[in-house]
């Protein structure tokens, strides 16, 4: 196990390196000028070539690419994520730190809610296999996995605004400052994510439970005369649920993916909304660092999933 963990950890280093290079290349080498945002379309401010050159110089964009790249990576390692182009009032790092709790909370609640919804549905469906209950839950699961989360979010917000004059707070609220406001901000998107996530959990827990129920040792346990419920809890459940736990990684991936559109639909000031705002404003430095953040989180989620798999299934360690 130890060697596997070390090997797997070492593997993330080239991956992270590749991620930084990939982002940097996309942002700098492909067409599209990071300076596009400094003019103002509404006011028709057009920079002269000298002004553009001066601005490029001020931002360090006239240096060779590899130096820019090394500079960027060095800054990140120091924890300095820079500033938006001309706005130095709020460092990017502060903005991300401020918004991260909101998104983290959404993701966390999303996973929890998925379990709360998905697990019972999966277990009941497996126990009552091929009954009406099973069919209904399977239809629900299939639909739940296909429904776009941003659409659900939009429908939800329209309903709450029209009927209850309510929508999630548009300013960041921290759970330790104002728990009630913070919950209002994070529970609705988490509930939206729980539809897809819950469906995934229900489907997988049902499948693994059925598989386990067919295993020999369960049959043996039953043959020994153990009560049905005891068999379920002591043997089947434990063995069925552990693999499903690793699904939370997959789910987190889904939430990270869906976060941009759902936060946009609900107007929640999280990292996803920050990304779409940055893209709208061509805020190159914010995009670059935010995408990197998403990448790094995702790499570590994958790492955690792999390690969890290895812990649960010893075969993987020796592959």
């Amino acid at each position: 196990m130890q060697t596997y963990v070390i090997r797997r950890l070492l593997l993330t280093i080239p991956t992270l390196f590749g991620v930084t290079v990939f982002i940097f290349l996309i942002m700098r080498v492909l067409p599209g000028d990071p300076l596009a945002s400094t003019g103002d379309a509404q006011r028709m401010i057009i920079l002269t070539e000298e002004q553009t050159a001066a601005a490029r110089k001020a931002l360090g964009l006239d240096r060779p690419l590899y130096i820019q790249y090394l500079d960027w990576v060095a800054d990140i390692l120091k924890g300095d994520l820079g500033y938006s182009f001309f706005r130095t009032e709020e460092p990017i790092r502060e903005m991300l730190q401020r918004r991260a709790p909101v998104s983290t909370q959404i993701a966390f609640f999303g996973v929890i809610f998925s379990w709360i919804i998905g697990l019972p549905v999966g277990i009941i469906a497996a126990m009552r296999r091929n009954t009406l209950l099973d069919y209904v839950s399977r239809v629900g699961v299939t639909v739940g996995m296909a429904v776009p989360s941003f659409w659900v979010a939009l429908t939800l917000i329209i309903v709450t605004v029209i009927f209850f004059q309510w929508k999630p707070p548009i300013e960041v609220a921290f759970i330790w400052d104002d728990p009630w406001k913070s919950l209002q901000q994070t529970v609705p998107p988490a509930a939206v994510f729980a539809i897809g996530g819950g469906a995934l959990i229900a489907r997988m827990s049902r499948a693994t439970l059925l598989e386990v129920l067919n295993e020999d040792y369960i049959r043996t346990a039953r043959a020994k005369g153990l009560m049905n419920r005891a068999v379920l809890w002591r043997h089947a459940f434990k063995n069925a649920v552990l693999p499903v736990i690793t699904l939370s990684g997959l789910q987190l991936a889904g939430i990270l993916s869906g976060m941009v559109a759902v936060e946009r639909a609900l107007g929640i000031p999280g990292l996803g909304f920050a990304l779409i705002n940055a893209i709208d404003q061509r805020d190159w430095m914010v995009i670059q660092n935010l995408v990197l953040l998403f990448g790094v989180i995702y790499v570590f989620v994958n790492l955690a999933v792999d390690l969890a798999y290895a812990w649960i299934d010893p075969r993987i360690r020796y592959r």
Partner: protein
Amino acid sequence: MMEEQSSPGGRHVVTAVVNSCKTFVGPVVRFYGSSPPGAIALALLAIVVTIALFANQIAPYDALHTDFTNLKGSPTVSHPMGTDIVGRDVLSRIIVGTRVSLLVAFVSVAMGVGVGFVWGVSTGFIGGKFDLLGQRLLDVLLSFPSLILALLLMIPLGRGLGTVVLAIAVITVPGAARLVRSTALSVTQMAYVDGARAIGASSKRIIVRHVAPQCFAPMMIIATIDLGGAIFTEATLSFLGMGIPPPNPSWGRMIGASLQGMFTPPWWLVIYPGVAITLTVLCFNLVGDGLRDHLDPRLRGKLD
């Protein structure tokens, strides 16, 4: 195939059609045997594809025609799904939107899975440093949540049908490549490949005759599932205003337009495109599941 009926030599064509029907019917019946929901979804998909192919004939109105006397009209007999803020028929736009969604999905998945297939087979078969490099590259692509990667690619590429296809193709590559590679790897280690090598078959022949065909089934499965994902990604990108440019109707954009422009978008502007996305993705998911059961009997029953 069916639209060729009007060509001369009708009888010959009819025979051909009957024959082609026969060749189609057999697998479909067998598919129904192994996965009834998948087969039903396949039938639904056939309808969706037909709608996409004949969108302009089926749509009751021109999807771009604006009726200025009927802005934001609620659903009626003549406009079953209402009209949008410039008086375009929502039903017609959804029907024509089918074409855009499916076009993007099929082309991008074909490209992405195609590249992934070649990548997977070659890295799996050749192995060694080449494989290692290929794997690390895949790791990089797999280090982003798929939609973030698509958004990142859309920034420099700019909006457009072609760029959306390209971005979705790129995010499709790694999953397909990884799956195909693992199959190729196990096939390469099988005895009959060793046998082929022993009798002096060239690498090219081994790949084409032995390895690639074995990887075909997993490729088909992942392609079908990716089709649903591609429709979803296209809808999300368009919703965020980063996808298909107007005036082509796109489901995601129809939802996004109602968000941007108007508060209390009339419900029909939001609900119907969402239903269209859900149904299509649902069908692709079901067909994908069914196909997996059908083509890979080891998995049968496991994920029903």
